[in-house]
């Protein structure tokens, strides 16, 4: 089994037969002094600024990638099934924030969560809910200056729509409980 090479190096057996290999007995990346030095660099303002410059320099290409995914999403909503729809929304939620399109990313995340929350036996999501999310994502990605003003309100409205839609969907698929047997009912007056 992996890790057995450390079997005699400070392992502590547990009552359930498992073993704990203490951190100091696991292979270390760096010497303790170098680890402290590197961690300090990682947490420094200078590193953060350099990293943000890297992200900023790629903003245009990230935006183009998001817009490509938005086009894919708009095409996918008219296809059967949710696989492609979910895949494009998932990519948008991953990339949009770094492209400065956080509202598009937030609504794409909401769409993913809606698709995730659908009961397993529901193969098709509500078309209107999908349509409104896709339109909102497209608008927020293509006109981010508008999204700053109205994006939060749109996202919250869509959240309420999703909540209502899921409640209706779940109540529609829940099994109907049998009526209690006649003998169990109280006597009629």
């Amino acid at each position, binding site marked *: *089994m*992996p*890790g*057995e090479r450390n079997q005699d190096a400070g*392992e*502590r057996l*547990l*009552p*359930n*037969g*498992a*073993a*704990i*290999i*203490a*951190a100091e007995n*696991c*292979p*270390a*990346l*760096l*010497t303790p002094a*170098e*680890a*402290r*030095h*590197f*961690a300090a*660099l*990682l*947490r420094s303002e200078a*590193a*953060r600024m*350099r*990293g*943000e410059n*890297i*992200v900023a320099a*790629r903003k245009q*290409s*990230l935006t183009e*990638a998001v817009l490509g995914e938005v086009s894919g999403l708009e095409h996918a909503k008219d296809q059967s099934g949710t696989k492609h729809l979910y895949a494009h929304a*998932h*990519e948008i*939620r*991953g*990339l*949009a*924030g*770094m492209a400065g399109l*956080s509202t598009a*990313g937030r609504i794409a*995340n909401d769409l*993913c*969560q809606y698709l*995730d929350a659908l009961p397993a036996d529901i193969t098709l999501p509500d078309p209107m809910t999908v349509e409104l999310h896709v339109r909102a994502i497209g608008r927020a990605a293509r006109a981010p200056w508008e999204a700053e003003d109205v994006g939060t309100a749109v996202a919250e409205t869509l959240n309420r729509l999703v909540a209502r839609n899921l409640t209706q969907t779940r109540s529609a698929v829940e099994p109907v409980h049998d009526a209690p047997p006649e003998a169990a009912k109280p006597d009629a007056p």
Partner: protein
Amino acid sequence: MTKAHFDDLKALVVDDNAHMRELLHALLNVLGIREVVEAADGEAGYAALAQYQPDFILTDLAMQPVDGIEFTRRVRLSPDTPNPFVPIIMVSGHTERNRVEAARDAGVTEMLAKPITTQSLFARIAEIVEHPRAFVRCDSYFGPDRRRRHGDSHSGPWLRFDDSAPDVVTI
């Protein structure tokens, strides 16, 4: 083997999105990590792990044909794994509880939610460098100790010698 200088560290980035791979690669370069290898899914990632022996891994979750969870499981449990102890940071838009738990139970070291920020990425790398985790080995799991906190917060089951039930006050 322990490295004397952090710019000798090697990293592996596994993500099916080329933009994300390229961005993570560039962010690691900014830190002085010069050797960064990229792979587009878990299958290619596992091959790269064997070939390049990276010191840590950043991996996406949702990939085809081998996703990040299966990739992590292979790294931790495969009989031919090149390094079952390698720290794995999972970078994912999937923040649902069941997926996070699946990633943890596969043996992921740290989770990082997309969209990432420079600060959050660097903080996770600092965590694996500065606070290496103990490892646990049992029949069904090999990976970092999944208990983050030790002390009064654990409510059972009592599996360890130093586990203790909270005092029961009888009135």
